[in-house]
């Protein structure tokens, strides 16, 4: 009873300290960067007004539509390709790294470390590094997306496996099933919907990242965004932004539908 009370009290003190530290950081940052909240707030209406007057696609901008679509398509394909291939590799690393399906401790540790390294290097850093060896082309973009997606999916899949299939893994092992029988007839049926939804999540994350990566590697929608942005052709920039938004929404809708279908 007493110990329980102490735990609650301790938690409360912890929360207060965390809150204070957060406030301190915010105000510290404000002082250091000379950022004024009021000024920031005051500039919002102006920005919105600018966006509405400049970024609305005009008839002229619509002439660039086919070109935009072509580049956008390139980006979509790149994202899907990078995500699905990364997903396949991630599945195996996740199986070897998960507590329930690991083969041995060393391999599990190794697979966790590798995934963590790939995950924690930002996609932009990958792009900048890879551009040196592969040059300004689509391969660079592919690998930059592949590496970060791989790192993220290993972790997401690992957690999914640990959460969903501990029990059935035990049962299948007890029947004398082999490792891959256990994986394909036990783990995968139980975790497929969750894993697919992570894959879809990464596809639409990657379409947004691909825009940024394309800017650096001179490919896809990022390249064309950069091009029109530098030409100060804001209506076309607006058109590009809108098409990205539409694509991301469409993918989200498809993802929901597919998930409902297999669930």
């Amino acid at each position, binding site marked *: 009873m007493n110990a329980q009370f102490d735990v609650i009290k301790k938690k409360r003190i912890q929360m207060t300290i965390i809150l204070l530290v957060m406030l301190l950081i915010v105000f510290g940052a404000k002082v250091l960067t000379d950022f004024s909240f009021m000024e920031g707030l005051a500039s919002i209406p102006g920005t919105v007004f600018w966006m509405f007057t400049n970024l609305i696609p005009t008839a002229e901008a619509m002439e660039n539509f086919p070109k935009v679509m072509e580049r956008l398509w390139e980006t979509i394909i790149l994202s899907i390709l990078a995500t699905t291939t990364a997903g396949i590799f991630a599945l195996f690393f996740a199986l070897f790294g998960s507590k329930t399906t690991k083969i041995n401790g060393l391999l599990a540790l190794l697979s966790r470390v590798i995934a963590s390294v790939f995950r924690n290097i930002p996609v932009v850093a990958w792009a900048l590094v890879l551009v040196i060896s592969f040059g300004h082309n689509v391969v660079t973009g592919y690998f930059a997306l592949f590496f970060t997606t791989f790192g993220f999916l290993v972790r997401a899949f690992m957690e999914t496996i640990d959460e969903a299939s501990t*029990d*059935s893994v035990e049962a299948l092992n007890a029947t*004398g*099933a*082999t490792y891959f*029988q*256990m994986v394909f007839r*036990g783990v995968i049926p139980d975790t497929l919907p969750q894993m697919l939804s992570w894959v879809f999540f990464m596809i639409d994350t990657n379409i947004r990242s691909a825009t940024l990566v394309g800017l650096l590697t001179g490919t896809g929608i990022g390249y064309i965004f950069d091009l029109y942005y530098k030409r100060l052709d804001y209506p076309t920039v607006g058109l590009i932004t809108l098409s990205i938004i539409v694509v991301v929404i469409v993918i989200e809708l498809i993802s929901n539908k597919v998930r409902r279908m297999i669930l």
Partner: protein
Amino acid sequence: MPTILAEKTEVYEKKGKNKKEFQNSKTILKIKDLYKSYNIKTPVLSMIEMELKQGEFVSIIGPSGAGKSTLLRCINRMIEPSEGSIVFDETEITSLSKKALRGERAKIGMVFQHYNLVSRLTVFENVLHGRFGYKSTLKGILSIFTEEEKQLALEILDKLGMKEFAYKRCDQLSGGQKQRVGIARALVQQPKLLLCDEPIASLDPNSSKVIMDHLKEICETMGITVLVNLHQVDVAVKYSDRIIGLNKGRVVFEGLPKELSNYAIQDIYGSELEDLIVE
């Protein structure tokens, strides 16, 4: 006076079988000097000795944390025993290679408290999983089963009153139905030994009775040895040919249900007996 024993006198007079009947039967499982510890300080199991005959129904009772689940899982090496010998069907289990172990596991069915089914697959698919131990990896992955295997699965489901649910997904079943699927999966293995880890701990009294009756019938009609971990002393007394009491990783009682006196129960459950009655 523990209320759980109220019916006891009546029960053991009904029971025909006693230890003698099994004396000439074949030994299915023989455990000698089994020892298991997770860390060096406190052993979870020590000096376990037990012998199971063909067709015997044996219950293991004991307080929470006594090591019942650990003992059961040491038998098919789902948990690696630290020391000792386990001979199942004339094969020493503890020294088997991974591949050979797989072959022995195929002959040992296992039933779990939480059923442990692949919930998004159908009843039929789950039952057929019991055949994996006899299959090549590829045939298992591709779900290639022979006609006989499918027939066997259906017959067993029929026997357990689950045939009409064969093509239903397991997440749509009640607890009692799920457990019957769990039993069917174990029976499709055509096992010589059935290990059941608290098969009725998550079930209501009616479903519990159905499950225990099925286990008893399997034991009697198919000659499969059944080893069950149980929380309920009265159930153990009612169904078992023999009862083993475990406390702090040691066998503190072994005998016929009628030999399980209040004194013995006190020994098995120790100070936790009072909690048990309140429950």
